[in-house]
């Protein structure tokens, strides 16, 4: 383990930015999102949750796939280039790191998504322990240790120092670049801080949710539960929950006509939208009830059934925080028997 004096943080970031793109939380007008670091940009490591999850650096909200030109009878395809520039996402929280693990299962599972794979291959993740977890957090039930998030590098901002613990080879390469600033440190140095975090977590309302009720849940039984009839009453069918979710994976593929061809691109999509499954002759999910159910069935039942029981939720609490109608996954889990 290493430590860097907090006063040298800017130098650390500048050093990294010299060789790769550095994405870190930046606060603007009261909201914090990950953004590209440049000299002079103030990082915001205090805010716990960015509005947009950092999954966007591996699965951008919108991404060109190729440009297609119809030229008389011929068609020309110019594929978009795969990511080839190294980058680091600095300051991901434990929940978001787990979110990437879940996305990996989808996007790196056969057949591998090459665009995602390229980004994943060029990106390094520095995970930051959550000094002040919030009341909407519930990552522990999903196995996240917010005091010791595991990524390429684990980081703690504690006292006057930033502590760095490389976890993977890529993480070690990253810390290697920072050698001039690093001092050796000991796990003991952050032990107290970690303990503090754990204590704070214990005091949170959702910290000790038991997900047992969802284990080995019967797909049809949950699907046909009467719960769905009314839980979605307040849902306004927006995509906020999907777009702030670190595990939502769905995308749409669309064309944009540029005048001299079409750019085919993919964009995040939400199963909450009525056109998600719309076909010319009908829609298998006719009302918001079915769409709403799909989102939570996917997270709590369908995904686990294909991913060894792993739920597609990491307890980041963004949906709890941001849903315009105060709906959220905890409410749904509870109505399905989680306590």
């Amino acid at each position, binding site marked *: 383990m290493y430590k860097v004096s907090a006063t040298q943080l800017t130098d650390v970031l500048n050093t990294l930015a010299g060789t790769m793109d550095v994405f870190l939380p930046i606060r603007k007008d009261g*909201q914090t999102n990950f953004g590209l670091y440049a000299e002079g940009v103030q990082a915001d490591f205090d805010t716990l949750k960015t509005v947009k999850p950092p999954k966007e650096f591996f699965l951008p909200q919108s991404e060109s796939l190729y440009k297609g030109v119809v030229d008389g009878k011929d068609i020309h395809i110019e594929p978009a280039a795969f990511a080839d520039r190294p980058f680091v996402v600095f300051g991901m929280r434990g929940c978001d790191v787990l979110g990437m693990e879940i996305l990996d299962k989808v996007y790196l599972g056969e057949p591998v998504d090459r665009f995602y794979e390229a980004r994943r291959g060029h990106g390094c993740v520095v995970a930051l322990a959550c000094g002040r977890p919030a009341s909407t957090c519930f990552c522990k039930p999903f196995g996240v240790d917010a005091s010791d998030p595991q990524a390429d590098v684990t980081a703690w901002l504690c006292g006057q120092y930033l502590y760095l613990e490389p976890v993977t080879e890529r993480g070690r390469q990253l810390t290697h670049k920072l050698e001039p600033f690093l001092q050796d440190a000991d796990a003991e140095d952050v032990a107290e801080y970690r303990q503090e975090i754990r204590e704070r977590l214990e005091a949170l309302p959702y910290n000790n949710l038991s997900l047992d009720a969802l284990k080995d849940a019967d797909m049809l039984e949950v699907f046909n539960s009467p719960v769905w009839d009314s839980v979605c*009453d307040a849902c306004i069918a927006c995509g*906020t929950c*999907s777009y702030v979710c670190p595990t939502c994976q769905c995308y749409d593929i669309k064309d944009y006509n540029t005048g001299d061809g079409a750019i085919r691109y993919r964009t995040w999509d939400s199963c909450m939208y009525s056109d998600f499954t719309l076909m010319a002759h009908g829609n298998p999910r006719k009302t918001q009830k079915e769409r709403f159910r799909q989102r939570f069935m996917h997270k709590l039942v369908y995904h686990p059934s294909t991913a060894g029981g792993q739920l597609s939720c990491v307890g980041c609490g963004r949906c709890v925080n941001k849903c315009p109608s105060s709906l959220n996954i905890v409410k749904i889990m509870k109505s399905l028997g989680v306590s």
Partner: protein
Amino acid sequence: MQEQLRILAGKMLADGRAARVLGWKRTDFETAPEPSFFTAQDDLSELVYNKYCAANLSGFMIGAGKRDGVTVVFLKPCDTYSFNQLVKEHQIDRAKAYVVGVSCGGNAKVEEMEDVGWLERCLVCTKHDHVVYDELVLDESLSRPEAQDRFGGVTRLEGLQSLERYEFWQGELSTCIRCNACRNVCPACNCKKCVFDSAKYDTAAKANVTTFEEQLFHIIRAYHVAGRCTDCGECARVCPQDIKLQLLNRKIIKDINELYGEFQAGQDTETLGPLTAFNADTDAEPSIVHTRG
């Protein structure tokens, strides 16, 4: 007041005058009550009313009006304007709604479940009285935050240079994630098929692929609700990125007031909206945009 509402709702359900009650339901967080339909008297203990009941329930009445029976709905003064506007646009069946006007002392802005002060809309609130109701449940003791100039923000922005305004909006809109929360929560955005979901016009990009897309979405959305927006402030309230959407709507309202005379959407259910009417003799020419201040 909460107790009064529970009693009222209970009576309406008990004597069969109402099939359901639309109110706010208690959740795990006091600061985040959930809009909810109550059909059983027993559930009414979950009905809450406090300063966190910010959700404008008018929009839910579109769907409620399509169900059998009367729906009791609790509306704050500003919500009644939305309700009226929806009645005017034939989206709500007035006969199937029992409107209970409730007093409002302003709603709190909530971040991470913490009360962080007043919602902006409540600081500039001008809609103190209910414009439609079947019954009022009032609490005279509620006091509102001190009122600020509703158009202050717009005026300040108008005072900037064009490029400064452009940069301001670039800053705001570049954070937009196109989650559609502003649109879907908006009572005026009641189109069955939004033009931004329609495959017909190359407008359904779904994401802000370019800065143009951001501008297009918000310009057209503001424009489509022009003359219909009651300034209920829900769009700004629900925006996950806290984009100052109210400024766009209020700019149009301010223009309408200045150019065509004071107009408040939802004031009644008959007056033609400013964009579906005109004054042949007094309407300004568009060039006024370029010549005024």
